[in-house]
């Protein structure tokens, strides 16, 4: 008997098991002095045993349910590519994977986008990679103005989350295969 695949349920399960390491607020600048929109990013990390891994950035932006605002934000995220990030992140960056969550769950007041940035090496370099490379790269590519990164307490009990995270990331690969290959 085939079990029906529920992408929304699978996705939310994966999100629940992400290892959150930080969050950061930001403003969308449109050329003027006042921000057009504000938002917050949840930053999660997944580290592979060999030292490589990736950061998943879940952007949520206020839109006041304005269609034009959502279209503008979509265009900005469309412009975020490996080519646009490479000058800032160099050869350490492997690839980026973007998922617009609006297709999964409609929330009128928000625009939600997930961007995972893969690196050859992330161990013991989180602060440098995120604060000195990734955030400036995003600021330049997206024309966002960022607040200081708020690091999540490092000493919190995360054993359960870490174990679940490992399983979750395996599922994520399968999930993407299903989404993009129509399985």
């Amino acid at each position: 008997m085939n079990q029906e695949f529920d992408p929304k349920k699978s996705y939310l399960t994966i999100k629940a098991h992400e290892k959150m390491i930080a969050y950061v607020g930001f403003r969308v600048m449109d050329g003027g002095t006042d921000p057009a929109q504000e938002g917050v990013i949840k930053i999660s990390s997944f580290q592979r045993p060999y030292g490589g891994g990736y950061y998943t950035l879940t952007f949520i932006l206020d839109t006041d349910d304005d269609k034009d605002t959502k279209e503008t934000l979509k265009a900005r995220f469309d412009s975020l590519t490996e080519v646009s990030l490479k000058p800032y992140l160099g050869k350490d960056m492997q690839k980026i994977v973007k998922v617009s969550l609006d297709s999964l769950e409609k929330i009128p007041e928000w625009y939600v986008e997930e961007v995972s940035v893969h690196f050859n090496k992330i161990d013991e370099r989180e602060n440098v990679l995120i604060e000195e490379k990734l955030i400036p790269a995003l600021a330049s590519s997206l024309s966002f103005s960022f607040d200081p990164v708020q690091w999540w307490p490092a000493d919190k009990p995360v054993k359960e989350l870490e174990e679940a995270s490992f399983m979750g990331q395996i599922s994520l690969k399968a999930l993407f295969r299903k989404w993009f290959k129509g399985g």
Partner: protein
Amino acid sequence: MSLKVNSGETRPGVFSVSPIGSLDGNTYKILETTVDAVLKEVPDVIIFDLEFLDYINSMGVRVLLKTKKELEKNNGRIMFAHLQPQIRKVFDILNALPTLKVFASIQEMDQYLDTMQKAAR
């Protein structure tokens, strides 16, 4: 839309915070000020009763994240009651509060806290 915030200590070390109205870029400071005052009491638990919260934007989410971060410094916990469906959706997708406790009602939460207190004795 405006925001009013009620707060108080419901039992030793357990504080409730109840925002009423819309939590957005114009009003988040009202909640932040209340929460900062509660955090000074070094609470064991802060319960956000969101029954009358109509809307939350990213600034509101940031206040909740900051609260959880500050609580964890002293092994405190953040809990939620009466999460409205539209706000629940945001929490589900963001899942920025991975270990949060959500209760359908104050009664359910009271039962949980009673059980926790009995277990601690």
